[in-house]
């Protein structure tokens, strides 16, 4: 569904649209659509095949070229220690395309990139150049962003577990925007950062998200009054409302409902507590490349209904993985193999959960290993070289005869990359795997992993320039 179609659907709906001239007056409105209308609208979006199309393809030829060049330089017999380490290809051109796509789909929303997702300096610099702002969750992240001569007013401090020392630190660095979801936090803020521009984080229905946040973070709607009361009592500066529907959501109804709930808080603050009109709506993150069209269509629909153009509210978001996941490709080397039977083996690579794939544990990701180099040949372009699941028609055992489990280099039971995978090739020690779209929540770009050496090199390319 195009924007126009969404607009048409909206205008023909029975919903009471926000009356701009009266948006802050003491008048209760029924904003939301009835359940059936909403359900039908979202179903229509879900069934729209246009929304299933990916915004663009990754620059595969350029990525392959970079992988090939790097591996080609490694001679197994003579290479120095470390040369066979796993490495990333980072395509900065992909970040640019993703940004352009963001502007196209969500022109009203200013992105604050979640630094924790991947704090790679080159990516941060590029995003800063493109005009993206930053969501920081720790002192280190704030330091890193400020060290790039980025103004503190381009930072939102959004750690849901804020220690008093962090709040003091944010105050000392003039980082003003900050989220909160409980009264205790407000007391800390009152003491250490009373001028802070606060965003009240409300809980959302994140039951379909892979990475659920509202089970832990965010204030339930029935408790919002307690926080508004405390804000008023403490004389703090409530600037807006934020939410986060969690990462990897499959049902975007939660986005619509969260925007609707945010509107309720905006009105409640002004009408029931006499607080100054709120100015910022933070729609959080959880955006993914694969579902971006669908999620943004729902978000636009909700915003047009509850926060239409000209309503005087700045809308911001905290995307993380959207801007980096598809920009990074990881290559890792097969370092050991344990044959269990003729066609079944345990494969050990030189990267894993304790290296650049901690996203398996922390982010519910399931990296897709593909054969990159086997039998003196590169297989990058065979996107079907492996499969996690066999079926009786397209992916049969005869096509994928080799069943493997893939493990990281430690002997730790947690260090499992894939419990069961089927491969076309009988990989051996010295072969290479690659893992596409592995830029989010890996430790790839951590400055220092707690005293340990950084575990992978990053080769930068720019497919928009090269």
């Amino acid at each position, binding site marked *: 569904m195009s924007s126009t179609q969404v607009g048409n659907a909206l205008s023909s709906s029975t919903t009471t649209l926000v009356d701009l001239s009266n948006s802050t007056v003491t008048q209760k409105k029924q904003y939301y659509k009835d359940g059936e209308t909403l359900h039908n609208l979202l179903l229509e979006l879900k069934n729209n095949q246009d929304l299933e199309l990916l915004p663009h393809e990754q620059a595969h030829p350029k990525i392959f070229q970079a992988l090939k060049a790097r591996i080609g330089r490694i001679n197994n017999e003579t290479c120095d220690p470390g040369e066979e380490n796993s490495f990333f290809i980072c395509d900065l051109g992909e970040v640019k395309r993703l940004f352009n796509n963001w502007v196209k789909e969500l022109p009203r929303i200013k992105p604050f990139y979640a630094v924790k997702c991947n704090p790679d300096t080159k990516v941060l610099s590029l995003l800063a150049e493109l005009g993206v702002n930053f969501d920081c*969750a*720790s002192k280190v992240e704030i330091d890193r962003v400020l060290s790039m001569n980025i103004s503190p007013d381009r930072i939102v401090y959004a*750690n*849901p577990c804020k220690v008093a020392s*962090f709040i003091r630190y944010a105050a000392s660095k003039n980082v003003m925007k900050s989220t909160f979801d409980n009264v205790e936090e407000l007391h800390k803020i009152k003491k250490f950062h009373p001028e802070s521009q606060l965003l009240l984080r409300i809980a959302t229905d994140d039951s379909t998200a892979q990475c659920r946040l509202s089970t832990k973070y965010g204030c339930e709607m029935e408790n919002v009054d307690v926080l508004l009361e405390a804000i008023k009592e403490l004389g703090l500066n409530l600037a807006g409302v934020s939410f986060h529907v969690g990462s990897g959501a499959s049902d975007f109804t939660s986005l619509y409902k969260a925007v609707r709930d945010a509107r309720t808080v905006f009105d409640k603050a002004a009408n029931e507590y006499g607080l100054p009109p709120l100015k910022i709506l933070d729609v959080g993150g959880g955006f993914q490349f694969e579902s971006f069209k669908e999620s943004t269509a729902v978000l636009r629909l909700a915003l047009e209904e509850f926060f239409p153009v000209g309503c005087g509210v700045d809308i911001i978001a905290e995307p993380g993985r959207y801007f980096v996941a598809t920009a990074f490709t990881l290559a890792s080397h097969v370092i050991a193999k344990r044959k269990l039977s003729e066609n079944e083996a345990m494969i050990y690579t030189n990267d894993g959960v*304790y290296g650049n794939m901690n996203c398996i544990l922390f982010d519910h990701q399931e990296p897709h290993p593909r054969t990159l180099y086997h039998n003196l040949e590169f297989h990058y372009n065979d996107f079907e070289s492996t499969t996690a699941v066999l079926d009786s028609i397209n992916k049969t055992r005869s096509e994928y005869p080799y069943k493997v489990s893939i493990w990281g280099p430690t002997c730790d039971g947690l260090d499992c990359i894939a419990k069961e995978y089927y491969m076309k090739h009988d990989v051996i020690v010295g072969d290479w795997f690659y893992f596409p779209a592995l830029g989010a929540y890996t430790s790839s770009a951590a400055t220092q992993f707690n005293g340990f050496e950084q575990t992978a090199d990053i080769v930068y390319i720019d497919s928009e320039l090269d």
Partner: protein
Amino acid sequence: MRLIEDPSNLVWLVGDLRIGARDIPLDVPPEVDIIDFYWDVILCMESQFILDYNVPSKNMGNNQKSVAKLLKNKLVNDMKTTLKRLIYNENTKQYKNNNSHDGYNWRKLGSQYFILYLPLFTQELIWCKLNENYFHVVLPSLLNSRNVHDNHSTYINKDWLLALLELTSNLNQNFKFEYMKLRLYILRDDLINNGLDLLKNLNWVGGKLIKNEDREVLLNSADLATDSISHLLGDENFVILEFEC
């Protein structure tokens, strides 16, 4: 030595600098030797890192006693060395092991030892030590904890974690270190059964997974002290998480 009672209840007292924890006086009966008690606390903390499989099941009781004795001797020696160094400003090596890596400094003697009591989280005592800017907290087994099975466990998770973060942050009283770091040692079985919720949200609360020490490499290196007890200690029973505070 500090006994800290339920920081979660006292995370925040407005206008009071004692944020996140309360020290309570030790009500030790006169017949109890306080020095012995202190030694017991130190031993209890350090013995968390004894590897079970190093204590053969045959004659378990006797073996445990002998391991405890070895550990005690080692701690006494380490303490002696440390005190000598402090008093005479001797340039002696407190420890040979792992000084090249901050990563494993649980092997170093703590400068302060703590007992934490967080009854809303667990009825067990929690053993901790402070070592420069690292606050090491060994979480007890949660498998039998009533709270991990109730519906509010997720909220409780946030509460106890925040309490520990606040406590760690406040241990840096002289602002000597730029960052204080909390190291949580969670038993592997617990993590699989109860702690995955925390693990899956680790990115969101600013935590990191720390690799365990490479025991094989360590045993073959000159870094490890030559006393036999050092070989019986290890961190592989734990999954280690680190938080900047």
